[in-house]
């Protein structure tokens, strides 16, 4: 063996590491008492994906938290469905953190797994601080309170003001006018599209259905009713399916390099989106800064005034928390206190769910990308107040996944969106039955 010497050293190192690896001491256990002493010292952990949340929490730890001896530690996470899975896994081991950030549509999943505590008795009376449609998503329409709304994504209509002028288009007030606008643009500039129907973010479609008055999940007694194929949603699906079929709007997915390019070069001249769109447009279409404008979402009839929400999340307290009242206190402070909300807006760029914070210091000026629209935030606040209630169920993830598959295929083949909707309904009902929920037919 010509290589013995040097290799023996390698192996020796390996063995040394094996022998040297010593167990780390387990962390000390915290106070086990079930009585929630709000004034006692408490160390809380908080799973959140909001950027710079640690800076906002520092305000609490140095201010009100110090006085009340409630210290919060931020553990930054990735957002989305994967975090729900992680929370549920941790909850199975009774190790979920005290506080978690959760999207509104994830709340029923967490509640039905008994992961979230009812904090209606600990948080104080906060109902009046939020739009009704938002508050209802945090209570799930019950007397309980499972989370405190943090940010919301009221939906709006974004369009290229300069190109609308160039082609002589009016900003659509209703969805009928929206369809007409799309057709008019096709006539004047056949290579351009008003917008695209994209199936890669289910939140968009859910928000549009919410605006139309859809109730996807409703619970009565022990039974769930799934209404994904209800009349309101069908109306939305058929509307977009029709536009795609006749070629009035594009059928390519959004958030792709091609989509960015289409926005940046003016091949697509409008986008149905939410209040956070300026951030997305800044990276997607940097060359068209200052050329866009925002308007309320088109309505289903001229007299109504409603919008859906796309995105948005809340702060919830878990049933594993040993300091439920303290955690609820912090969650209430974070999402209703003026200083906290201003910091959240400035440091983390979130659009607050609390109504009076939507015009606070951070929202005096329009976003840089929309510097041409001085009343961006006052108008956004007006729209946010009209947020329609949403009805989420315990398996939104399944409905969303089926939506992506079925509607992506339907959009690509320009086939019937109604069939895709039926698929979504059937898959959701089947999954609920499999999970052991009672479903009313």
């Amino acid at each position, binding site marked *: 063996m010509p*290589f013995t010497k040097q290799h023996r050293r390698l*192996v020796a190192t390996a063995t040394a590491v094996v022998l040297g690896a010593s167990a780390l001491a387990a962390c000390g256990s915290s106070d086990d008492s079930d009585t929630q002493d709000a004034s006692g010292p408490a160390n809380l952990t908080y799973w959140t994906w909001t*950027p710079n949340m640690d800076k906002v929490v520092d305000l609490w730890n140095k201010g009100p938290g110090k006085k009340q001896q409630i210290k919060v530690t931020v*553990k930054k996470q990735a957002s989305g469905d*994967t975090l729900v899975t992680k929370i549920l896994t*941790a909850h199975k081991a009774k190790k979920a953190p005290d506080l978690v950030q959760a999207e509104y549509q994830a709340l029923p999943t967490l509640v039905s797994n008994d992961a979230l505590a009812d904090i209606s008795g600990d948080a104080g009376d906060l109902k009046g601080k939020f739009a009704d449609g938002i508050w209802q998503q945090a209570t799930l329409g019950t007397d309980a309170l499972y989370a405190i709304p943090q940010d919301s994504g009221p939906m709006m209509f974004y369009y290229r003001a300069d190109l609308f002028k160039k082609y002589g288009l009016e900003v659509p007030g209703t969805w009928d006018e929206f369809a007409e606008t799309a057709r008019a643009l096709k006539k004047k500039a056949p290579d351009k599209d008003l917008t695209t129907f994209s199936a890669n973010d289910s939140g968009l479609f859910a928000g549009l259905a919410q605006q139309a008055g859809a109730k996807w999940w409703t619970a009565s007694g022990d039974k769930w009713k799934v209404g994904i194929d209800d009349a309101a949603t069908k109306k939305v699906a058929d509307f977009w399916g029709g536009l795609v079929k006749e070629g009035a709007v594009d059928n390519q997915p959004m958030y792709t390099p091609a989509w960015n390019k289409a926005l940046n070069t003016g091949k697509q001249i409008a986008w149905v989106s939410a209040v956070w769109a300026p951030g997305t447009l800044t990276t997607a279409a*940097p060359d068209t800064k200052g050329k866009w404008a925002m308007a309320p979402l088109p309505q289903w009839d001229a007299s109504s005034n409603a919008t859906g929400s796309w995105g948005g999340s809340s702060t919830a307290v878990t049933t594993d928390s040993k300091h439920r009242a303290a955690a609820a206190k912090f969650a209430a402070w974070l999402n209703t206190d003026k200083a906290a909300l201003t910091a959240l807006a400035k440091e983390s760029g979130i659009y607050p769910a609390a109504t009076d914070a939507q015009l606070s210091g951070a929202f005096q000026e329009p976003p840089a990308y929309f510097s041409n629209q001085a009343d961006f935030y006052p108008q956004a606040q007006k729209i946010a107040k009209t947020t329609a209630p949403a009805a989420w169920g315990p398996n939104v993830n399944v409905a969303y996944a089926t939506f992506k598959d079925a509607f992506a295929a339907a959009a690509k083949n320009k086939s019937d969106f109604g069939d895709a909707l039926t698929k979504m309904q059937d898959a959701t009902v089947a999954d609920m039955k499999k999970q052991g929920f009672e479903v009313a037919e």
Partner: protein
Amino acid sequence: MSSSVAVRKAAPAAGTTPGTAQAPPLRRRIALAPTAVLLLGALYCLLPVAWVVIASTKSGSELFSSFTFLPGSGFTDNLKDLSAYRDGVYWKWMANSALYAGVGALLSTAVSALSGYALAVYRFRGRESIFNVLMAGVLMPPVILAVPQYLLLAKADLTDSYLSVLLPLVLSPYGIYLARIYAAAAVPPDVVEAGRMDGAGEWRIFTRVALPMMVPGLVTVFLFQFVAVWNNFLLPYIMLSDDEKFPITLGLFTLLEQGANTPALYTLVITGAFLAIVPLIALFLVIQRFWSLDLLSGAVKS
């Protein structure tokens, strides 16, 4: 065993050499198709890597607007932004990955060496059934074990610690399997017998005689494990909640999933992903020579 294979492979190759002169067209045609397939495969594997390398040089505004394979001008800025992101947490992730992959691979190689050697050299009751259970473990994807492992470690109060990621990695059925196969081939029973005759204890025979013979195989085990841990996602994802302990895979994931109202930090993620493959490439380049030694040893032995 390995030497006889090498000889058998070499024989036809040697035999065809004179033949090539007589019928070059036939040989050419045969070689062309596999070469083309291999080239296509190489292209398929390397194109995404090339994309990452080039995209990491683009600034945020160039990323989606300039031609895909045209290098951009933002590499140093991307690097600066990445290092500045949350006080350089990226480098912390990199160090964590190195720790998990390095220590984890070393530990599991050591365990694999011991168990593989024992299974290959000693005859004891239950040997085959232990080996069969291990074989079943090879077939079991580690992904489905992550949640049970989490629940177990939660009972021991070890979650969210470095140990929670390292412990489940220590036992690698595939590593043990490889080590056994390699030990059976590389450590002749006669050598072990001779060691015993000379009065060496079993531990001494293992460390002084058998281990050096197994090293090339163990290097393979180490490399396999290192790459597997480096790319591991689900286990650390479930075990860890403190992002100061995240490995690089998890860290980049949090950069991508920033929530609906924050645009994903594409340029940072792409630059981060590019830097994350550099250590793997370096490791392969360094360790390559052990493999060539392996081939040499086979040839010498025969």
